[in-house]
């Protein structure tokens, strides 16, 4: 399905993503971890074509996505939804309208200008919201919602796109543990029920371990780990995060300590410190 | 050229309350729209220049101008308007005068006393309030009208009313305005800006004294835009010409005072005024 070869991105001489290559054969749930500045966001943004790659290729089902422009690119973007850390909703518009933005690519420009969406779309949007447990919020303004609810609206927008891939750039970094869990559960459920590929940048090791089928570790723009969560040993984690004073997994891992993880795992994480 | 017109626009010169002016012309408006068969509109711009610009720009079709305003229009575009009629005074003349005046208690009785004092013109486009005195007074004094040359300062007050009030209040020492110079000084003469000020109770003529009088100035013409269709010009000329016979009350309002009506006039009547204005431009 997704096939990435030597993908590189350079910002004014600074290489953010460095010859990244990997293959995804089936729709998996993939976690990308790495410390701040490792290039995770840049990688995802290139996948969504929000940023153009410097060199290298991304191809999906045999189609080269890297060089797309104009309508073809937008077409691709609509097939590959993106969820952001800061939700990136339109705060002054109501929840349903925000979800309906997922259909913008499919609808005529003039109709959307006046907020004229087909009734079917509107119904579908509410169903998606219901699936995510926030249907009651439908008529409210997005800004009136809590962070966790807003992120679920963002997921709803992504689902509304009916995408092949869902990209999530640190979807839970601005959420409290409770909401983080709800959001990650939702992503996992979507992956399992709909069979969509999900690629999520994650800040914390244990989230990746808990939710993902496959984990890609990045450091300084390069892929330094690619394997199953089980293979993600303490040593590997040290490698990814750079064993140093500025890495304190414990601090980040408390974020989801409310998760019902096996106690053993907690102990393992703690041992890392 | 003989295209149809869709409306006819009459411009009214300043000097009175805008609404009073419009009201005085409503009878003419009715007659004109009846005669022309199109809508007639009245406009009372804030100053002379508003009417002049309207005539030049083709946004005003007819107006009763002052002689100097006509000259200004002619000099900017000789093809813009043509004079057709002029107002006739009660004695049959078609002229009036520019009157210089001052306060009695200032001790000023003639232009000689005005040396070094503050002198006020009215509107720069006014014939009697600016053009004629600005030519004839230097002839009398032998000096220019620049501030500090003969007079201490030369100002524009903005209009006849303002000049009269400014002199009466002592803001300026002397000024010029228009009058027919018939009748009695204490009444403010028979017609003119002074008379109106007296009638309005603004000034007491006992307090004022005449210090200078110009040669006779031709009354300003009623002008029509040359670009108007010939039949329209014909109709309007006849209408205004016959206004006194038809409706004396209306003629009084339109002519701003007692009148014997209007009589035909041509461009030649204003040659001297145009020459005077042209001389000002040259100078």
């Amino acid at each position, binding site marked *: 399905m997704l096939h990435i070869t030597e993908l590189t991105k350079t910002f004014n001489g600074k290489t953010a993503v460095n010859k990244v290559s990997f293959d995804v054969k089936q729709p998996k749930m993939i976690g990308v971890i790495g410390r701040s500045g490792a290039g995770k966001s840049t990688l995802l943004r290139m996948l969504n074509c*929000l940023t153009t790659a410097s060199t290298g290729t991304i191809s999906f089902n045999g189609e080269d996505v890297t060089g797309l422009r104009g309508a073809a*690119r*937008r077409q691709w*973007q*609509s*097939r590959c*939804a*993106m969820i*952001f850390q*800061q939700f*990136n*909703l*339109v705060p*002054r*518009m109501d929840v349903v309208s925000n979800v309906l*933005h*997922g259909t*913008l*690519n499919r609808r005529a*420009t003039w109709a*959307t*200008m006046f907020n004229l969406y087909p009734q079917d779309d509107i119904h579908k949007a509410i169903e998606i919201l219901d699936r995510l447990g926030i249907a009651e919020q439908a008529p409210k*303004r997005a800004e009136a919602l809590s962070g966790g609810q807003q992120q679920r609206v*963002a997921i709803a*927008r992504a689902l509304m*796109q009916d995408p092949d891939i869902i990209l999530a750039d640190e979807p839970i970094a601005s959420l409290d543990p409770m909401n983080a869990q709800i959001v990650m559960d939702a992503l996992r459920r979507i992956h399992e029920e709909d069979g969509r590929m999900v690629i999520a940048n994650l800040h914390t090791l244990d989230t990746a371990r808990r939710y993902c089928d496959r984990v890609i570790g990045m450091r300084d723009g390069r892929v330094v780990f690619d394997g199953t969560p089980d293979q993600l040993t303490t040593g590997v984690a040290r490698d990814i995060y750079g064993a140093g004073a500025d890495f304190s997994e414990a601090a980040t891992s408390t974020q989801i300590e409310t998760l019902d993880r096996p106690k053993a795992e907690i102990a393992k994480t703690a041992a890392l410190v | 050229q003989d295209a149809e017109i869709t409306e006819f626009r009459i*411009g009214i010169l300043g000097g*009175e*309350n*805008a*609404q009073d002016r*419009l*009201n005085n012309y409503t009878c003419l408006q009715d007659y004109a729209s009846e005669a022309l068969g199109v809508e007639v509109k009245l*406009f*009372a*711009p*804030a100053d002379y220049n*508003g009417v002049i*610009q*309207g005539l*030049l*720009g083709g*946004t*005003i079709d007819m107006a009763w101008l002052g002689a100097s305003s006509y000259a200004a229009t002619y000099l900017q575009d000789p093809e813009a308007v043509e004079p057709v009629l002029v107002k006739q005074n009660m004695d049959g003349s078609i002229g009036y005068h520019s009157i210089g005046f001052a306060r009695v208690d200032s001790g000023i009785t003639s232009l000689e006393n005005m040396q070094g004092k503050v002198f006020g013109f009215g509107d720069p486009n006014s014939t009697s309030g600016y053009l004629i005195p600005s030519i004839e007074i230097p002839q009398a004094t032998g000096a220019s009208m620049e501030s500090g040359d003969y007079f201490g300062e030369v100002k524009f007050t*903005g*209009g006849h*009313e*303002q000049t009269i009030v400014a002199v009466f209040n*002592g803001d300026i020492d002397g000024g010029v305005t228009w009058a027919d110079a018939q009748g*009695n*000084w*204490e*009444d403010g003469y028979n017609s003119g800006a002074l008379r109106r000020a007296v*009638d*309005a*109770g*603004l000034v*007491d*003529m*006992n307090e004022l004294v005449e210090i200078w009088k110009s040669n006779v100035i031709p009354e300003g013409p009623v002008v029509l835009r040359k670009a108007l269709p010939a039949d329209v010009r014909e109709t309007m000329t006849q209408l205004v010409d016959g206004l006194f016979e038809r409706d004396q009350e209306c003629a009084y309002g339109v002519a701003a005072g007692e009148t014997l009506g209007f009589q035909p006039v041509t461009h030649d009547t204003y040659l001297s005024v145009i020459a005077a204005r042209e001389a000002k431009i040259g100078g």
Partner: protein
Amino acid sequence: MSTAELDLLKSQADSLFARKRIMGFALPAIVLVYFTYIFFAFDIPSLAQRANMDNAVTIASDSWSYKVHVTRTNRTGEIAYAVEGERKGTYPDGTRPDWVTGEDITTVTLGPDTIVRFLPENRTEIDIAGFGPITAQATGRQVTTNLGETIPDWINASDRRVTITLPDGRVTLTGSKTEVFRYFPGWELFWFTLDSPYHGHGIWSLLTGPQLDPQRGNSSGAISDWWNNPMWRHKDIAWAISETILMAFLGTFGAAIIALPLAFLAAKRFAPLVIIRGITRRFFDFVRGVDALIWTVVLARAFGPGPLTGSLAILITDTGTFGKTFSEALENVDEKQIEGISSTGAKPLQRYRFGVIPQVVPVLLAQVFYFLESNTRSATIIGAITGGGIGLMLTQAIQTQKDWEEVAYYIILIIIMLMVMDSLSGWLRGRLIGRKD
């Protein structure tokens, strides 16, 4: 801390305060010097002499009172009665105010202790309590009186003209006519002129009393007579006010509509080309810098006098102002929302519509409504230049300097108009900003 260190700190504090004092005094000193310069540049010392307190009194008293003229034309002996001495205020034939009596000798009561008698053969007798009777005879251009050499300062007399100013009115005698007028408080004829059948009737008697005009019902007739009152011209004033508001409305919203797309061209993040941005910005600066005043003058030639010219002048200037503020608002938009919309594959117009517009609309509307109010004020002034609206009526009424009660009426209406526009725009601002897109 050692005393030496402490002393150092103390001296530092002393110099800090010395500096602060100098700063504290420098600014007022500069302002004071400037005001001194202004004091002489504006010639304030002679202001007191130039100021004409009589005029102030005239305004103050005239704006809430009216006068009724009684005029005898000496040539014919006819006596006319008119409010404000105006034709429109003339008493209908055969009627006159109730303080004028007598048939052969017309007696005018001028306040509690003054009586003026119009005697035959152009003689006039004025009886002032505590001063004695004044008699005057008009012959030809001459006015002869029994006044001696010493006359009080409320009388101004020459052999051609005599004016007697009294607390309640004034008597003016010349060879050609004798005029008496008397002041009364209030705005006479505000509701109905003398020729209207409804003059002198209160609202109660109009509503419940008998029908006064056989042709028309009382209320419709009264409203129509009031609306068409030739003295106060309520209809024309209403038109003038709506013209002024119209100028502000068209100018403000027209400018907003034009400025919005242009603002995109001037905002850094939407116009990548420096040249286009620069040109648009200079254009905004230019139209703003030329100022509404000059635009009015330029446009008056092309469009002639009237409200359209005023609207366009406001429109052009505000296009510059709005362009500048709108583009500033656009520069400050939140990138996240746009990115969120882009990531769904939205087309450029859709990105603007959903990523940008919802963010900037409240800011822009607040701006536009703020300007609507201030433009109503500008429209009043521009109207005075270009010939339209309440502004022209006001300036002309002030310049002719006689009907101060009309001036007062216009001023009150203008203030009400502006206060209403102020609260209206404030209210709309609140509503629209609170509204969801």
